[in-house]
């Protein structure tokens, strides 16, 4: 599968996520869009990993580990995403508790 | 030192003089009356006095005497001294035109619902009650069902069809 396909698919997904971040006001949705962007990147990383693997195979190297970094990177991104979500959602919940809204426009105020 | 009806009567008359009256003993239980203005004072005295110590409100209810003009409605308190194991009955009377009696909720938390029930049944208005509204009957009810002039059955009811009961 040509890598371009994956490249443009990821780009499109990333852009969709970005547009979501820019246009939506609900903090949770924005957060979800960030996850979407991360996933777009993940997809690309995996694709690149397989690209390198194929390259290594074609170059005749018996390297089963070629491109493994890409997938490990995805793994770490997932870890970070999970950590980020737990903290981020905690913040959103706190914010909701205090100002009873998850509209980011109300987040402009730093205090009541 | 055991508490007897006589001591209670004596202490009460010492404190309130002529205002408490109609002392009698009915089936072993002391009962007396006080004007409705001082009902809280009497209850407080009975509650706080170290010797008397009537800290338990057993029962609170109303009675309707339509024949006694000016004092148609009575509020009856049954108090209990658990330590000495002695009970007494205490009544205040009020007229039906303006049935205002001071609430005992400040003293006894248990009086809350009993007063609401009494209000529900007799329309006695407990002044100072935190939440005086009907408790058992529907809020829309516009009379006080346990007063003697109201019949047991709601005469205006349409949900009863005598034919269904073999009386048609």
């Amino acid at each position, binding site marked *: 599968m040509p890598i371009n396909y994956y490249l443009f698919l990821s780009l499109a997904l990333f852009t969709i996520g970005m547009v979501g971040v820019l246009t939506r006001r609900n903090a949770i949705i924005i957060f979800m869009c960030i996850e979407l962007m991360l996933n777009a990147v993940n997809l690309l990383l995996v694709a690149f990993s397989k690209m390198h693997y194929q390259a290594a195979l074609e170059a005749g190297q018996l390297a089963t580990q070629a491109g493994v970094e890409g997938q490990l990177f995805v793994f770490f991104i997932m870890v970070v995403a999970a950590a980020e979500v737990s903290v981020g959602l905690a913040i959103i919940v706190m914010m909701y508790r205090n100002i009873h809204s998850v509209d980011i426009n109300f987040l402009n105020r730093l205090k009541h | 030192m055991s508490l007897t009806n006589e001591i209670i009567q004596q202490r009460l008359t010492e404190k309130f003089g002529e205002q408490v009256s109609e002392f009698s003993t009915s089936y072993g239980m002391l009962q007396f009356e006080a004007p409705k203005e001082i009902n809280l004072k009497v209850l407080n005295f009975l509650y706080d006095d170290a010797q008397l110590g009537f800290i338990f409100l057993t*029962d609170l209810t109303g009675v309707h005497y339509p024949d006694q003009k000016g004092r148609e409605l009575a509020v009856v308190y049954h108090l209990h001294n658990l330590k000495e194991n002695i009970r007494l009955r205490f009544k205040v009377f009020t007229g039906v035109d303006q049935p205002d009696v001071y609430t005992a909720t400040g003293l006894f938390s248990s009086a809350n619902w009993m007063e609401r029930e009494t209000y529900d049944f007799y329309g006695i208005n407990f002044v100072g009650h935190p939440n005086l509204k009907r408790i058992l009957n529907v809020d829309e009810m516009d009379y006080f*069902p346990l007063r003697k002039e109201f019949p047991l059955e709601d005469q205006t009811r349409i949900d009863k069809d005598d034919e269904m009961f073999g009386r048609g």
Partner: protein
Amino acid sequence: MSEHIKLPEGSIEKTTTTLNLGPTHPATHGVMQNILELDGERIVSADQTIGYIHRAFEKLAERRPLAQITTLTDRLNYCSSPLNNMGWHMTCEKLLGITTPKRVDYLRVIVMELARIADHLICNSIMGVDAGAYTGFLYVMQYRELIYEIYEEICGARLTTNMGRIGGFERNFNDIAFQKLEKFLDEYPKALKEFENMFQRNRIFMDRTMGVGGISAERALNYGFTGPNLRAAGVDYDVRVHAPYSSYQDFEFIIPVGSTGDSYDRWLVREQEMWQSLSIIRQAYQKVQAFTGAEAEVYHADVPEYYLPAKQDVYTKMEALIYHFKIIMGETDIPAGEVYHAVEGGNGELGFYLISDGGRAPYRLHFRRPCFIYYQAFEELVKGAMLSDAIITMSSLNLIAGEMDA
């Protein structure tokens, strides 16, 4: 940006959820409504509405002759209706000045303690059901069935027994009743033990009930708690001991008391009271068996003015027929006066405040219904607790809607 600073009208909703428990919620045995304000699972406030089965007992009682009021007291606390019946009869006897023979007293004690067992048994096993364990409930319910069979032998009905008459019982206990009683005394302790094994030291159950719905002795007294719920809070107030009626002074029993007044204490107190009741029944049964000869046939006081004559006499003797008519038509003399009599009902002090003006029916009859009085403490009991705690607390209080709403 300034346009965003001000929150739009109504955008701050309350963070709490309003949960309407009842009137058809499974945990509200009988019917009551609890409007709970929840913050997550925590209860912020509770508002109780009752009166969903208000039946105007007190108004009805003003129309009914004394003898017919048993049909009302039956339906007060229907889990232990004989207790209410006996209480009512004793109130009438107090008013009429009747003293009952010892054998009647002891028979009454048997019946009353059976009723108490039936009452506590339902409460405790329902607590198990509300905690999610249904099976224990059905184990002990079989023995309640046995109690009902005994009732059926005594009076002909199971639940709303209409048992007893002013001055005694309507008929002597037959042998089958005593046999069944023996069977009950024999088998029930095992079942109760088994029931306790299932719950008492089960950590899940203990966790669910310990520290749930606790109340201090002072607050409990102030709220007018009586019965097991008060005893669980540590006050050993028991009408059977404080104002012995029906020869309770002749029996040896202890008053189990708790310390914290929480649901687990209430459960334990009820459990212990069942054991005590069993012991009382055994004692009473022994005393009943000690009567021999003509004494063993005594089942009512000798008060021809108030107790219906024997049927055979009614058919044959003129005098008996006259009494019969007088009693049924309510033409016998009833003294005027005010009586307050209390018995230890299933839930606590069940009081009857009877004002008689000498008429056939009471001038005013007020029931001191323990449920009604202590249920108002519910909000205080559950505030800050969790939703599940409210359920357990509610069932541990043994709320009987029939008694509460009268």
